[in-house]
């Protein structure tokens, strides 16, 4: 590998770009998309500068100009040639900065192509020049180039912030979430390509074809065209943003509304029941109509008092739910169930978020390695990653990878586990301590089990149970791969549990659930869940939660905790089950989960009221936290006798005892005749002669005496 070969990797980046690059990599509140798009735009002037260099070098052949002076003249020339376009360019960059980076994001692919071609071009010319008499000067240039080149290579590694106790992490996380959210907010406007978008794309492609291959001459023109397009798209984005703002805006709605309708030329009309029937018969409305109608419904419902046109609120809601069902492909039952969990606008966000995949995350296995070392090893394999957030010091988020992340030698050697970010939460809440006895009731495929074993540093015992025998295979494989030596794997129905073995310090129940939190992972949930499924599941969950609570040892010195979690967002699988457990087992109480984010659980929901402490449980949503929908509740199990005697039971019990005393005693007088009767029956059965009835009293007297 010579110096030239190295140079071929890419043209030396000017210092300005390095600075920009670093800035982007710093965990600030910038979007991922922006980070990619920005250096691209800034690097172009740099290339042109080099172009200028070459021309000057050619233009003054005999003079051995000193490097510094040469550079100066280059700078000047570059400026005079490109001054106009550059100034324009910078303006465009600013614009797109201000108005959201969507345009830049969409540009990335094509710009990459351009850059690649340009690179090849410049490298060719480098090679030509290298053969000429000015090799010395070029070497100088290249040296400079290399020095600069190294920086961006090293940049990301140095900047990668693995310190768990750094404040920036949290900020970055929050920032990312926010940006994600805002992106999703204006998604409903963008999910279907509008006519203008399509046409602009077409025209661009056409113009590219016209230009043919890139040459030095048309390079500038092309880049200008690209910039112009970026500006156009930025404008389009601006328009869309404004529209969205109009939808969201509340104060000046009346004014906007009038303007809107005049602009659209038609007034929004909510279909009546008959019209909807007809629509269904005709094979459903087209997507654009549904989309527009949803937007209108959301707007009206958001400010119902001002905007209703003499129609009932339920009509709007019904229309919106049926539109959601048809637009996102849910069955009506599930669409309604999920819709009622959120305020109107947020519900749309939630459904939108379910269409987008969650980021790939991995958990470092602290039994084998450290996060810093793992990150370094994976970066060397071409994986682009970053710590998830401040709340965990073992999680890494993978942005892109050139190798399959589930088959690297590090993965096979058990240095990490592919695991959703939400799966960290119940284990963090449980926080098992070394030398405890812990139960994971529904454990396959072992992500949480191995996390617990790692937190306990391979001491104590973890019982990993799963009802499905086939799934225990992957569970066992993962337990062994990650080097957990304190795990006992068994396969029982969870409901058998306190009978098999009890007295655990901590128990985790990640209950089987409908999976409404992981719709982005498994879209079949949208259609295959019915009311009956929810009933059966919540029944099973209620049985399991009681068994799990009974398996916890209330006398445990270090623990006595129980964590209930599901990957579902519905209330009847979460709060209702927890409330049921609180009512059935008076010796348990909810405690704080120890997770500093997440929404509090509902204390009342659609006419049901739950125990006040249910607000201590935590809900996680895809559109808010950018992780799977999840629910975590943490219980503390206390000794049963104390609380029961001190509570209401004391009042009830004495009365019950009195009643029992009255009923339990034998009334020998009354029983006499029954005893007599059965005696006669027994005698007859033995074939003895039965004495006549009037002689009964002496016999019975003898019996009582004997008794």
């Amino acid at each position, binding site marked *: 590998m010579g110096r030239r070969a190295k140079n071929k990797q890419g043209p030396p980046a000017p210092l300005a770009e390095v600075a920009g690059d670093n800035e982007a990599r710093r965990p600030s509140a910038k979007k991922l998309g922006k980070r990619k798009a920005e250096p691209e735009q800034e690097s172009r002037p740099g290339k042109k500068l080099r172009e200028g260099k070459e021309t000057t070098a050619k233009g003054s052949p005999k003079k051995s100009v000193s490097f510094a002076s040469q550079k100066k003249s280059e700078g000047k020339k570059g400026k005079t040639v490109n001054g106009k376009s550059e100034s324009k360019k910078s303006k465009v960059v600013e614009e797109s900065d201000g108005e959201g980076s969507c345009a830049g994001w969409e540009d990335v692919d094509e710009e990459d192509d351009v850059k690649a071609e340009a690179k090849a071009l410049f490298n060719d010319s480098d090679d030509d020049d290298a053969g000429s008499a000015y090799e010395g000067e070029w070497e100088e240039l290249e040296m400079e180039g290399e020095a600069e080149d190294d920086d961006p290579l090293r940049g990301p590694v140095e900047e990668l912030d693995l310190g768990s106790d750094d404040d920036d992490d949290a900020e970055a996380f929050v920032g990312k979430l926010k940006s994600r959210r805002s992106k999703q907010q204006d998604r409903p406007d963008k999910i279907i390509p509008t006519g203008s978008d399509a046409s602009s794309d077409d025209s661009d492609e056409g113009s590219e074809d016209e230009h043919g291959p890139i040459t030095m001459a048309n390079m500038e023109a092309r880049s200008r065209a690209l910039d112009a397009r970026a500006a156009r798209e930025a404008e389009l984005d601006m328009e869309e943003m404004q529209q969205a703002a109009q939808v969201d805006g509340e104060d000046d709605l009346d004014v906007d509304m009038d303007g809107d309708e005049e602009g659209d030329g038609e007034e929004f009309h909510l279909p009546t029941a008959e019209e909807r029937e007809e629509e269904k018969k005709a094979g459903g409305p087209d997507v654009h109509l549904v989309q527009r109608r949803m937007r209108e419904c959301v707007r009206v419902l958001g400010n119902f008092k001002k905007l209703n046109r003499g129609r009932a609120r339920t009509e709007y809601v019904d229309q919106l739910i049926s539109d959601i069902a048809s637009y996102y492909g849910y069955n009506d039952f599930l669409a309604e169930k999920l819709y009622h969990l959120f305020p109107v606008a947020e519900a749309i966000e939630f459904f939108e978020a379910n269409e987008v995949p969650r980021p790939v995350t991995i958990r470092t296995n602290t039994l084998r390695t450290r996060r810093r070392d793992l990150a370094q*090893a994976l970066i060397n394999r071409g994986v682009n990653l970053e710590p998830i957030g401040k709340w965990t010091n073992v999680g890494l988020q993978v942005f892109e990878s050139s190798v399959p992340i*589930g*088959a690297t*030698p*590090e993965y*096979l*050697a*058990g*240095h990490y586990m592919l695991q959703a970010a939400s799966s960290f939460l119940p284990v963090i809440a449980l926080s098992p301590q070394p030398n405890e*006895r812990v139960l994971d009731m529904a454990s396959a495929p072992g992500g949480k089990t191995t996390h617990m074993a790692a937190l306990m540093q391979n001491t104590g*015992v973890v*019982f990993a149970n799963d009802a499905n*025998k086939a799934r*225990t*295979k*992957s*569970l*066992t*494989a993962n*337990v*062994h*791969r990650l*080097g957990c*030596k*304190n*795990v*006992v*794997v*068994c*396969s*029982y129905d969870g409901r058998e549990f306190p009978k*098999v*073995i009890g007295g655990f310090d901590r128990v985790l129940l990640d209950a089987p659930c409908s999976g409404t939190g992981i719709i982005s992972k498994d879209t079949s949930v949208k259609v295959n869940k019915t009311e009956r499924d929810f009933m059966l599941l919540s029944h099973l969950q209620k049985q399991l939660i009681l068994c799990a609570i009974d398996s916890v040892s209330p006398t445990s010195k270090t623990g006595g905790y129980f964590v209930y979690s599901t990957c579902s967002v519905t209330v009847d699988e979460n709060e209702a089950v927890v409330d049921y457990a609180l009512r059935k087992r008076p010796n348990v109480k909810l405690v704080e989960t120890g997770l500093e984010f997440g929404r509090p659980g509902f204390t009342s929901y659609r006419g049901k009221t739950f125990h006040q402490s249910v607000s201590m449980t935590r809900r996680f949503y895809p559109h808010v936290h950018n992780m799977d929908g999840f629910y975590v509740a943490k219980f503390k199990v206390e000794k049963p006798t104390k609380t029961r005697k001190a509570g209401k039971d004391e009042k009830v019990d004495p009365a019950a005892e009195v009643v029992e005393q009255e009923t339990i005693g034998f009334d020998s007088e009354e029983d006499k005749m029954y005893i007599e009767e059965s005696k006669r029956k027994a005698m007859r059965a033995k074939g003895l002669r039965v004495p006549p009835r009037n002689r009964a009293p002496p016999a019975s007297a003898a019996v009582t005496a004997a008794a």
Partner: protein
Amino acid sequence: MRPLTEEESKLVFAKLANFIGKNLIQLIDRPDEPYCFRLHRDRVYYVSEASMRLAISVARPNLVSLGTCFGKFTKSGKFKLQITALDYLAQYAKYKVWIKPNGEMPFLYGNHVLKAHLGRITEDTPEHQGVVVYSMNDIPLGFGVTARSTVDTRKLDPTAILVFHQADVGEYLRDEETLF
């Protein structure tokens, strides 16, 4: 779940001794906690006694695994070490082989170690000796048996096999169904 019989322990220890030699004593007499070998459904598990006592409560048909699985007895009565034993083998191994990064993936796909892929090897390794295979950054990848002694390797051509493959961590993906 039951303790090993005399013959069974002999087979297991013979296999282990091929890799860790006298360090076998470290496995049996541990300073921290008493450990034991247990047989459950033809598989040999190495587990701390405390765990083992708790696992007694689990009925035989429901018990899937406990502690670390070392290997299994085949139907013909031989003992076969499995990849799950790698943790302990790597910890106590007497003879080690390091392979270069370009040899990692071929080995993880179940191929033998060629001379071209050899990075380092313990001095004076004899022929047919059990060795643990590491990557160059000391991640244990599997184990096998040497085909030649260290001295003989010098004059081999690059494609010659140096270590016969016995087990590698790729089996966690390839043989997940049959491993347990």
